[in-house]
Protein backbone atom coordinates (compact mmCIF):
# COMPACT_ATOMS: atom_id res chain seq x y z
CA UNK A 1 0.00 0.00 0.00
CA UNK A 2 1.44 3.36 -1.03
CA UNK A 3 2.06 6.06 1.58
CA UNK A 4 0.77 9.49 0.69
CA UNK A 5 3.36 12.26 0.33
CA UNK A 6 1.73 14.21 3.21
CA UNK A 7 2.08 11.33 5.66
CA UNK A 8 5.60 10.67 4.48
CA UNK A 9 6.56 14.27 5.12
CA UNK A 10 5.05 14.17 8.64
CA UNK A 11 6.98 11.04 9.49
CA UNK A 12 10.28 12.44 8.32
CA UNK A 13 9.93 15.93 9.78
CA UNK A 14 10.64 16.61 13.44
CA UNK A 15 7.62 18.07 15.12
CA UNK A 16 7.95 21.31 17.00
CA UNK A 17 8.37 20.70 20.71
CA UNK A 18 5.27 21.73 22.63
CA UNK A 19 5.67 24.54 25.07
CA UNK A 20 6.44 22.98 28.45
CA UNK A 21 5.45 24.27 31.85
CA UNK A 22 8.37 22.96 33.94
CA UNK A 23 7.33 25.05 36.93
CA UNK A 24 7.64 21.91 39.07
CA UNK A 25 11.38 21.91 38.34
CA UNK A 26 11.82 25.26 39.99
CA UNK A 27 9.16 25.66 42.61
CA UNK A 28 8.57 29.07 44.08
CA UNK A 29 9.22 27.88 47.60
CA UNK A 30 12.77 27.23 46.55
CA UNK A 31 13.24 23.60 47.63
CA UNK A 32 16.70 22.49 46.68
CA UNK A 33 17.86 19.00 46.01
CA UNK A 34 20.32 18.55 48.82
CA UNK A 35 23.08 16.06 49.32
CA UNK A 36 21.12 14.33 52.09
CA UNK A 37 20.54 10.77 51.01
CA UNK A 38 18.93 7.97 52.96
CA UNK A 39 20.93 4.77 53.07
CA UNK A 40 19.45 1.32 53.67
CA UNK A 41 19.84 -0.02 57.19
CA UNK A 42 20.01 -3.59 58.45
CA UNK A 43 16.42 -4.16 57.43
CA UNK A 44 16.86 -2.55 54.00
CA UNK A 45 15.41 0.86 53.17
CA UNK A 46 12.41 0.96 55.47
CA UNK A 47 9.66 3.53 55.88
CA UNK A 48 11.05 4.41 59.31
CA UNK A 49 14.33 5.34 57.65
CA UNK A 50 12.93 7.48 54.84
CA UNK A 51 10.44 9.17 57.17
CA UNK A 52 12.95 9.89 59.95
CA UNK A 53 12.73 13.56 60.93
CA UNK A 54 9.66 14.17 58.80
CA UNK A 55 6.61 15.46 60.57
CA UNK A 56 3.21 13.87 60.38
CA UNK A 57 0.54 16.58 60.67
CA UNK A 58 -1.90 16.40 63.58
CA UNK A 59 -4.72 17.46 61.29
CA UNK A 60 -5.27 17.33 57.56
CA UNK A 61 -7.66 18.96 55.13
CA UNK A 62 -6.43 16.78 52.32
CA UNK A 63 -9.41 15.42 50.39
CA UNK A 64 -7.53 14.50 47.24
CA UNK A 65 -4.91 11.83 46.64
CA UNK A 66 -2.07 14.25 47.42
CA UNK A 67 0.75 12.28 49.03
CA UNK A 68 2.05 13.68 52.30
CA UNK A 69 4.83 16.24 51.70
CA UNK A 70 3.76 16.84 48.08
CA UNK A 71 2.62 20.37 47.15
CA UNK A 72 -1.11 20.66 46.70
CA UNK A 73 -2.68 22.01 43.54
CA UNK A 74 -5.83 24.01 42.99
CA UNK A 75 -8.81 22.52 41.23
CA UNK A 76 -7.95 18.93 42.04
CA UNK A 77 -11.06 16.78 42.36
CA UNK A 78 -11.85 15.45 45.79
CA UNK A 79 -11.21 11.73 46.04
CA UNK A 80 -12.88 11.01 49.33
CA UNK A 81 -13.99 12.25 52.72
CA UNK A 82 -11.22 11.13 54.99
CA UNK A 83 -10.69 11.18 58.71
CA UNK A 84 -9.13 14.59 59.35
CA UNK A 85 -7.08 13.93 62.50
CA UNK A 86 -4.02 11.84 63.08
CA UNK A 87 -5.58 10.45 66.27
CA UNK A 88 -8.50 9.02 64.34
CA UNK A 89 -6.52 6.25 62.66
CA UNK A 90 -2.87 6.47 63.74
CA UNK A 91 -0.76 3.82 65.42
CA UNK A 92 2.89 4.47 66.26
CA UNK A 93 3.95 1.02 65.08
CA UNK A 94 2.21 0.98 61.70
CA UNK A 95 5.39 1.53 59.63
CA UNK A 96 7.24 -1.16 61.54
CA UNK A 97 4.34 -3.59 61.25
CA UNK A 98 3.93 -2.92 57.54
CA UNK A 99 7.59 -3.67 56.83
CA UNK A 100 7.47 -6.71 59.11
CA UNK A 101 4.38 -8.02 57.37
CA UNK A 102 6.00 -7.66 53.97
CA UNK A 103 9.12 -9.44 55.20
CA UNK A 104 7.31 -12.26 56.95
CA UNK A 105 4.84 -13.26 54.25
CA UNK A 106 4.46 -16.99 53.67
CA UNK A 107 2.72 -19.25 51.21
CA UNK A 108 0.06 -21.77 52.14
CA UNK A 109 1.02 -23.73 49.03
CA UNK A 110 4.73 -24.16 49.70
CA UNK A 111 5.56 -23.27 53.32
CA UNK A 112 3.30 -25.86 54.95
CA UNK A 113 4.65 -29.45 55.13
CA UNK A 114 1.37 -30.87 53.81
CA UNK A 115 2.93 -34.30 53.38
CA UNK A 116 3.03 -34.74 57.17
CA UNK A 117 -0.76 -35.00 57.32
CA UNK A 118 -1.81 -38.60 57.73
CA UNK A 119 -5.19 -40.22 58.27
CA UNK A 120 -6.60 -39.40 61.70
CA UNK A 121 -9.32 -41.06 63.77
CA UNK A 122 -12.66 -39.77 62.52
CA UNK A 123 -13.46 -37.75 65.65
CA UNK A 124 -10.13 -35.88 65.50
CA UNK A 125 -10.32 -35.28 61.75
CA UNK A 126 -13.87 -33.96 61.99
CA UNK A 127 -13.03 -31.80 65.00
CA UNK A 128 -10.09 -30.24 63.13
CA UNK A 129 -12.29 -29.71 60.08
CA UNK A 130 -15.04 -28.09 62.18
CA UNK A 131 -12.45 -25.76 63.68
CA UNK A 132 -11.10 -24.94 60.22
CA UNK A 133 -14.63 -24.34 58.91
CA UNK A 134 -15.23 -21.84 61.69
CA UNK A 135 -11.88 -20.13 61.11
CA UNK A 136 -12.48 -19.87 57.36
CA UNK A 137 -15.76 -18.14 58.14
CA UNK A 138 -14.13 -15.79 60.65
CA UNK A 139 -11.47 -14.79 58.12
CA UNK A 140 -14.12 -13.44 55.75
CA UNK A 141 -14.99 -10.91 58.44
CA UNK A 142 -11.35 -10.20 59.26
CA UNK A 143 -10.66 -9.36 55.62
CA UNK A 144 -13.86 -7.50 54.85
CA UNK A 145 -13.73 -5.28 57.93
CA UNK A 146 -10.41 -3.49 57.28
CA UNK A 147 -11.33 -3.27 53.61
CA UNK A 148 -14.36 -1.17 54.51
CA UNK A 149 -12.15 1.43 56.17
CA UNK A 150 -9.48 1.90 53.51
CA UNK A 151 -11.30 4.67 51.62
CA UNK A 152 -11.62 6.68 54.84
CA UNK A 153 -7.93 6.71 55.70
CA UNK A 154 -6.40 10.06 54.85
CA UNK A 155 -3.46 9.89 52.39
CA UNK A 156 -1.56 12.01 54.94
CA UNK A 157 -1.71 8.97 57.23
CA UNK A 158 -0.86 6.48 54.53
CA UNK A 159 0.96 4.18 56.94
CA UNK A 160 -2.35 3.00 58.36
CA UNK A 161 -3.62 2.30 54.86
CA UNK A 162 -0.53 0.22 54.08
CA UNK A 163 -0.86 -1.71 57.30
CA UNK A 164 -4.53 -2.52 56.64
CA UNK A 165 -3.62 -3.75 53.17
CA UNK A 166 -1.14 -6.22 54.67
CA UNK A 167 -3.81 -7.35 57.09
CA UNK A 168 -6.18 -8.05 54.22
CA UNK A 169 -3.48 -10.14 52.53
CA UNK A 170 -2.85 -12.00 55.79
CA UNK A 171 -6.53 -12.77 56.22
CA UNK A 172 -6.77 -13.98 52.62
CA UNK A 173 -3.96 -16.43 53.33
CA UNK A 174 -5.61 -17.59 56.55
CA UNK A 175 -8.88 -18.12 54.74
CA UNK A 176 -7.17 -20.19 52.09
CA UNK A 177 -4.97 -22.23 54.43
CA UNK A 178 -7.87 -23.27 56.68
CA UNK A 179 -9.95 -24.23 53.68
CA UNK A 180 -7.02 -26.27 52.36
CA UNK A 181 -6.61 -28.05 55.68
CA UNK A 182 -10.31 -28.88 55.83
CA UNK A 183 -10.12 -30.39 52.36
CA UNK A 184 -6.67 -31.96 52.56
CA UNK A 185 -7.42 -35.05 54.63
CA UNK A 186 -10.91 -36.16 53.69
CA UNK A 187 -12.91 -34.39 56.40
CA UNK A 188 -14.08 -31.43 54.35
CA UNK A 189 -15.93 -28.28 55.35
CA UNK A 190 -18.45 -29.03 58.10
CA UNK A 191 -21.09 -26.90 59.78
CA UNK A 192 -21.48 -23.21 59.09
CA UNK A 193 -21.57 -21.14 62.28
CA UNK A 194 -24.36 -18.83 63.27
CA UNK A 195 -22.14 -15.76 63.19
CA UNK A 196 -23.08 -14.20 66.44
CA UNK A 197 -23.44 -10.58 67.51
CA UNK A 198 -19.78 -10.22 68.53
CA UNK A 199 -18.57 -11.04 65.02
CA UNK A 200 -21.32 -9.14 63.23
CA UNK A 201 -20.59 -6.04 65.31
CA UNK A 202 -17.13 -5.80 63.74
CA UNK A 203 -18.68 -5.23 60.34
CA UNK A 204 -21.28 -2.88 61.80
CA UNK A 205 -18.76 -0.57 63.50
CA UNK A 206 -19.37 3.08 62.67
CA UNK A 207 -15.97 4.44 63.65
CA UNK A 208 -12.41 3.36 62.92
CA UNK A 209 -11.41 3.25 66.58
CA UNK A 210 -14.54 1.28 67.41
CA UNK A 211 -13.63 -1.21 64.67
CA UNK A 212 -10.02 -1.41 65.83
CA UNK A 213 -10.91 -1.86 69.51
CA UNK A 214 -13.35 -4.67 68.88
CA UNK A 215 -11.58 -6.33 65.95
CA UNK A 216 -7.85 -5.82 66.50
CA UNK A 217 -7.74 -5.81 70.30
CA UNK A 218 -10.71 -7.92 71.38
CA UNK A 219 -11.47 -10.34 68.55
CA UNK A 220 -7.99 -10.81 67.12
CA UNK A 221 -6.58 -11.14 70.61
CA UNK A 222 -8.92 -14.05 71.16
CA UNK A 223 -8.27 -15.49 67.72
CA UNK A 224 -4.53 -15.25 68.34
CA UNK A 225 -5.07 -17.35 71.48
CA UNK A 226 -7.15 -19.69 69.38
CA UNK A 227 -4.34 -20.10 66.85
CA UNK A 228 -1.88 -20.81 69.64
CA UNK A 229 -4.35 -23.35 70.99
CA UNK A 230 -4.56 -24.79 67.48
CA UNK A 231 -0.79 -25.22 67.48
CA UNK A 232 -0.99 -26.86 70.90
CA UNK A 233 -3.62 -29.41 69.83
CA UNK A 234 -2.26 -30.03 66.33
CA UNK A 235 -1.95 -33.62 65.23
CA UNK A 236 0.94 -33.20 62.79
CA UNK A 237 3.68 -30.84 61.67
CA UNK A 238 1.55 -29.30 58.93
CA UNK A 239 -1.08 -28.13 61.40
CA UNK A 240 1.59 -26.94 63.82
CA UNK A 241 3.08 -24.77 61.08
CA UNK A 242 -0.28 -23.44 59.92
CA UNK A 243 -1.31 -22.27 63.37
CA UNK A 244 2.11 -20.91 64.29
CA UNK A 245 2.33 -18.81 61.13
CA UNK A 246 -1.25 -17.58 61.47
CA UNK A 247 -0.63 -16.61 65.12
CA UNK A 248 2.35 -14.53 64.01
CA UNK A 249 0.22 -12.62 61.51
CA UNK A 250 -2.55 -12.14 64.02
CA UNK A 251 -0.09 -10.72 66.55
CA UNK A 252 0.76 -7.91 64.14
CA UNK A 253 -2.90 -6.99 63.80
CA UNK A 254 -3.25 -7.10 67.55
CA UNK A 255 -0.13 -4.95 67.95
CA UNK A 256 -1.58 -2.31 65.65
CA UNK A 257 -4.81 -2.23 67.64
CA UNK A 258 -3.14 -1.95 71.04
CA UNK A 259 -0.95 0.93 69.89
CA UNK A 260 -3.86 2.67 68.14
CA UNK A 261 -5.92 2.46 71.31
CA UNK A 262 -2.97 3.81 73.29
CA UNK A 263 -2.60 6.71 70.86
CA UNK A 264 -6.30 7.55 71.15
CA UNK A 265 -6.28 7.35 74.96
CA UNK A 266 -3.26 9.67 75.11
CA UNK A 267 -4.27 12.16 72.44
CA UNK A 268 -8.06 12.15 72.90
CA UNK A 269 -8.55 11.33 76.59
CA UNK A 270 -12.16 12.44 76.46
CA UNK A 271 -12.93 9.28 74.45
CA UNK A 272 -12.19 6.94 77.35
CA UNK A 273 -15.85 6.22 78.20
CA UNK A 274 -16.63 5.72 74.53
CA UNK A 275 -13.90 3.07 74.32
CA UNK A 276 -15.31 1.23 77.34
CA UNK A 277 -18.72 1.26 75.68
CA UNK A 278 -17.32 -0.51 72.62
CA UNK A 279 -15.67 -3.15 74.79
CA UNK A 280 -18.89 -3.62 76.79
CA UNK A 281 -20.68 -4.46 73.55
CA UNK A 282 -18.33 -7.31 72.63
CA UNK A 283 -17.54 -8.74 76.03
CA UNK A 284 -21.23 -9.53 76.64
CA UNK A 285 -21.71 -12.17 73.94
CA UNK A 286 -18.45 -13.92 74.89
CA UNK A 287 -19.53 -14.04 78.52
CA UNK A 288 -22.72 -15.79 77.42
CA UNK A 289 -20.62 -18.39 75.61
CA UNK A 290 -18.65 -19.07 78.73
CA UNK A 291 -21.69 -19.15 81.00
CA UNK A 292 -23.69 -21.52 78.87
CA UNK A 293 -20.83 -23.49 77.38
CA UNK A 294 -21.49 -22.67 73.76
CA UNK A 295 -19.95 -20.20 71.37
CA UNK A 296 -21.86 -17.33 69.86
CA UNK A 297 -20.02 -18.06 66.65
CA UNK A 298 -21.05 -21.67 66.45
CA UNK A 299 -22.21 -24.10 69.12
CA UNK A 300 -19.82 -26.70 67.67
CA UNK A 301 -16.71 -24.59 67.98
CA UNK A 302 -15.91 -25.17 71.65
CA UNK A 303 -16.80 -28.83 71.25
CA UNK A 304 -14.27 -29.20 68.45
CA UNK A 305 -11.57 -27.64 70.64
CA UNK A 306 -12.52 -29.95 73.52
CA UNK A 307 -12.28 -33.06 71.32
CA UNK A 308 -8.89 -31.99 69.93
CA UNK A 309 -7.49 -30.86 73.28
CA UNK A 310 -8.53 -34.11 74.93
CA UNK A 311 -7.18 -36.23 72.11
CA UNK A 312 -10.57 -37.63 71.16
CA UNK A 313 -14.17 -37.90 72.32
CA UNK A 314 -13.21 -40.36 75.06
CA UNK A 315 -11.30 -37.65 76.93
CA UNK A 316 -13.90 -34.91 77.16
CA UNK A 317 -12.93 -34.04 80.75
CA UNK A 318 -9.31 -33.42 79.81
CA UNK A 319 -10.42 -31.34 76.84
CA UNK A 320 -12.71 -29.19 78.98
CA UNK A 321 -9.94 -28.53 81.50
CA UNK A 322 -7.55 -27.51 78.74
CA UNK A 323 -10.14 -25.25 77.15
CA UNK A 324 -10.73 -23.52 80.47
CA UNK A 325 -6.97 -23.06 80.94
CA UNK A 326 -6.74 -21.44 77.52
CA UNK A 327 -9.74 -19.26 78.30
CA UNK A 328 -8.06 -18.03 81.47
CA UNK A 329 -4.92 -17.20 79.50
CA UNK A 330 -6.98 -15.38 76.83
CA UNK A 331 -8.74 -13.14 79.30
CA UNK A 332 -5.63 -12.30 81.29
CA UNK A 333 -3.70 -11.41 78.14
CA UNK A 334 -6.61 -9.25 76.97
CA UNK A 335 -6.40 -7.35 80.27
CA UNK A 336 -2.60 -7.01 80.05
CA UNK A 337 -2.93 -5.45 76.58
CA UNK A 338 -5.55 -3.00 77.84
CA UNK A 339 -3.13 -2.07 80.62
CA UNK A 340 -0.55 -1.21 77.96
CA UNK A 341 -3.14 0.74 75.97
CA UNK A 342 -3.85 2.88 79.03
CA UNK A 343 -7.15 1.40 80.16
CA UNK A 344 -6.17 -0.32 83.45
CA UNK A 345 -9.59 0.47 84.94
CA UNK A 346 -11.03 -2.16 82.60
CA UNK A 347 -10.04 -4.67 85.25
CA UNK A 348 -12.90 -3.37 87.41
CA UNK A 349 -15.30 -2.71 84.58
CA UNK A 350 -14.89 -5.97 82.70
CA UNK A 351 -17.91 -8.20 82.23
CA UNK A 352 -18.30 -10.16 85.46
CA UNK A 353 -18.12 -13.55 83.79
CA UNK A 354 -14.83 -12.68 82.11
CA UNK A 355 -13.55 -10.99 85.25
CA UNK A 356 -13.84 -14.25 87.13
CA UNK A 357 -10.92 -15.57 85.07
CA UNK A 358 -8.59 -12.69 85.92
CA UNK A 359 -5.50 -13.30 88.03
CA UNK A 360 -4.80 -10.72 90.75
CA UNK A 361 -2.98 -7.68 89.34
CA UNK A 362 0.81 -7.81 89.37
CA UNK A 363 2.43 -5.52 91.94
Amino acid at each position, binding site marked *: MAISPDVLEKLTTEEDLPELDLSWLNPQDGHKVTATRVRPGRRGLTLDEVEAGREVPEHSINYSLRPRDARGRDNVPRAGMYYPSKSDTWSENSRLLYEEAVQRQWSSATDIPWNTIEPLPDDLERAMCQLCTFLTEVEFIAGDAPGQWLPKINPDYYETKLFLLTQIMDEARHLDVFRKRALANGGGLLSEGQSGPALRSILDAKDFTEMSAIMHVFAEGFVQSLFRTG*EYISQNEAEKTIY*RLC*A*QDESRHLGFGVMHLKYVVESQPWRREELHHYLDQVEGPLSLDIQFGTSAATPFFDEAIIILAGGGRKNIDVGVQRLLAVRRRQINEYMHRLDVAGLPERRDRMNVVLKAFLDPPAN
Partner: protein
Amino acid sequence: MTQGGVKTRASFPSTEWFEAVRSLVNSDEQYRRIGTCDAVVGVKVPDRQKYYLLTFEAFECSEVKESTEQEVDNADFWLEAPFEKWKELITNVKDNGKADLHHTLNTIDLEDPQGFARSRDGYKRDLFYRFNQSFQYFFDLSSKIETTFPN
Protein backbone atom coordinates in the same frame (compact mmCIF):
# COMPACT_ATOMS: atom_id res chain seq x y z
CA MET B 1 27.60 -27.14 63.34
CA THR B 2 30.87 -28.60 62.28
CA GLN B 3 34.28 -27.08 62.47
CA GLY B 4 36.77 -29.19 60.57
CA GLY B 5 34.26 -32.02 60.61
CA VAL B 6 33.84 -31.89 64.39
CA LYS B 7 30.46 -30.95 65.83
CA THR B 8 30.48 -28.07 68.29
CA ARG B 9 30.16 -29.26 71.86
CA ALA B 10 28.75 -26.90 74.44
CA SER B 11 27.22 -27.18 77.84
CA PHE B 12 23.73 -25.89 78.60
CA PRO B 13 23.20 -23.38 80.06
CA SER B 14 26.23 -21.35 79.04
CA THR B 15 27.12 -18.35 76.92
CA GLU B 16 29.10 -20.74 74.68
CA TRP B 17 25.96 -22.76 73.98
CA PHE B 18 23.96 -19.68 72.96
CA GLU B 19 26.93 -18.38 70.96
CA ALA B 20 27.05 -21.67 69.06
CA VAL B 21 23.35 -21.44 68.17
CA ARG B 22 23.74 -17.77 67.29
CA SER B 23 26.53 -18.64 64.91
CA LEU B 24 24.37 -21.31 63.24
CA VAL B 25 21.42 -18.95 62.89
CA ASN B 26 23.48 -16.14 61.42
CA SER B 27 24.85 -18.34 58.67
CA ASP B 28 21.50 -19.95 57.86
CA GLU B 29 19.79 -18.70 54.72
CA GLN B 30 16.47 -20.29 55.72
CA TYR B 31 16.42 -18.26 58.93
CA ARG B 32 16.79 -15.06 56.92
CA ARG B 33 13.93 -16.09 54.67
CA ILE B 34 11.52 -16.24 57.62
CA GLY B 35 11.85 -12.45 57.75
CA THR B 36 12.96 -9.75 60.11
CA CYS B 37 12.81 -10.42 63.82
CA ASP B 38 13.37 -7.69 66.39
CA ALA B 39 13.22 -8.55 70.06
CA VAL B 40 15.32 -8.79 73.18
CA VAL B 41 14.62 -12.19 74.66
CA GLY B 42 15.59 -13.32 78.14
CA VAL B 43 16.31 -16.88 79.19
CA LYS B 44 15.93 -17.92 82.82
CA VAL B 45 17.05 -21.16 84.40
CA PRO B 46 16.14 -20.14 87.95
CA ASP B 47 17.15 -23.30 89.79
CA ARG B 48 20.68 -22.88 88.37
CA GLN B 49 20.67 -19.09 88.85
CA LYS B 50 21.52 -18.66 85.17
CA TYR B 51 20.20 -15.78 83.10
CA TYR B 52 20.88 -14.77 79.49
CA LEU B 53 19.85 -12.08 77.05
CA LEU B 54 19.48 -12.83 73.35
CA THR B 55 19.16 -9.87 70.99
CA PHE B 56 17.45 -10.44 67.67
CA GLU B 57 17.87 -7.66 65.12
CA ALA B 58 16.63 -7.64 61.53
CA PHE B 59 17.84 -10.90 59.97
CA GLU B 60 20.23 -12.10 62.66
CA CYS B 61 20.79 -12.76 66.30
CA SER B 62 23.17 -9.93 66.99
CA GLU B 63 24.20 -10.68 70.55
CA VAL B 64 23.97 -13.23 73.33
CA LYS B 65 25.30 -12.61 76.80
CA GLU B 66 25.01 -13.84 80.34
CA SER B 67 23.04 -11.42 82.41
CA THR B 68 21.38 -10.75 85.73
CA GLU B 69 17.81 -11.65 86.60
CA GLN B 70 16.99 -7.97 86.93
CA GLU B 71 18.23 -7.26 83.39
CA VAL B 72 16.29 -10.21 82.03
CA ASP B 73 13.15 -8.88 83.73
CA ASN B 74 13.51 -5.80 81.51
CA ALA B 75 13.75 -7.80 78.28
CA ASP B 76 10.77 -7.73 75.92
CA PHE B 77 9.92 -11.15 77.35
CA TRP B 78 11.79 -14.07 78.82
CA LEU B 79 11.56 -17.86 78.59
CA GLU B 80 11.56 -19.40 82.02
CA ALA B 81 11.69 -23.04 83.02
CA PRO B 82 13.56 -25.19 85.52
CA PHE B 83 16.76 -26.85 84.33
CA GLU B 84 15.13 -30.26 83.84
CA LYS B 85 12.50 -28.78 81.53
CA TRP B 86 15.16 -27.01 79.46
CA LYS B 87 17.08 -30.28 79.30
CA GLU B 88 13.97 -32.10 78.10
CA LEU B 89 13.35 -29.46 75.42
CA ILE B 90 16.92 -29.46 74.09
CA THR B 91 17.23 -33.24 74.22
CA ASN B 92 13.97 -33.58 72.33
CA VAL B 93 15.21 -31.20 69.63
CA LYS B 94 18.45 -33.16 69.38
CA ASP B 95 16.69 -36.51 69.13
CA ASN B 96 14.22 -35.39 66.45
CA GLY B 97 16.26 -32.83 64.54
CA LYS B 98 13.65 -30.29 65.68
CA ALA B 99 11.05 -30.02 68.41
CA ASP B 100 8.40 -32.72 68.13
CA LEU B 101 4.70 -31.92 68.45
CA HIS B 102 4.86 -31.83 72.26
CA HIS B 103 7.97 -29.69 72.66
CA THR B 104 7.44 -26.62 70.52
CA LEU B 105 7.90 -23.33 72.36
CA ASN B 106 4.20 -22.53 72.06
CA THR B 107 3.10 -25.93 73.36
CA ILE B 108 5.40 -25.69 76.36
CA ASP B 109 4.07 -22.20 76.96
CA LEU B 110 0.44 -23.34 77.00
CA GLU B 111 1.15 -26.38 79.17
CA ASP B 112 2.71 -24.26 81.90
CA PRO B 113 0.02 -22.48 83.96
CA GLN B 114 2.45 -19.58 84.51
CA GLY B 115 3.55 -19.63 80.88
CA PHE B 116 6.98 -20.39 79.44
CA ALA B 117 7.13 -16.90 77.85
CA ARG B 118 6.66 -14.20 80.46
CA SER B 119 6.86 -10.44 80.52
CA ARG B 120 5.88 -7.47 82.59
CA ASP B 121 4.40 -5.86 79.49
CA GLY B 122 1.45 -7.38 77.67
CA TYR B 123 2.39 -5.77 74.36
CA LYS B 124 6.01 -6.89 74.49
CA ARG B 125 5.10 -10.45 75.42
CA ASP B 126 3.19 -10.63 72.15
CA LEU B 127 6.58 -10.52 70.40
CA PHE B 128 6.93 -14.16 71.47
CA TYR B 129 3.97 -14.96 69.24
CA ARG B 130 4.75 -12.40 66.53
CA PHE B 131 8.17 -13.92 65.83
CA ASN B 132 7.44 -17.43 67.05
CA GLN B 133 8.63 -19.17 63.89
CA SER B 134 12.01 -17.42 64.17
CA PHE B 135 12.45 -18.37 67.83
CA GLN B 136 11.38 -21.94 67.13
CA TYR B 137 13.91 -22.08 64.30
CA PHE B 138 16.61 -20.75 66.65
CA PHE B 139 16.08 -23.52 69.18
CA ASP B 140 15.58 -26.19 66.51
CA LEU B 141 19.02 -25.38 65.12
CA SER B 142 20.49 -26.47 68.44
CA SER B 143 20.04 -30.04 67.13
CA LYS B 144 23.32 -29.43 65.30
CA ILE B 145 25.21 -28.97 68.55
CA GLU B 146 26.48 -31.68 70.85
CA THR B 147 24.90 -30.40 74.04
CA THR B 148 26.12 -31.57 77.40
CA PHE B 149 24.29 -30.97 80.64
CA PRO B 150 26.10 -30.44 83.93
CA ASN B 151 24.86 -32.45 86.89
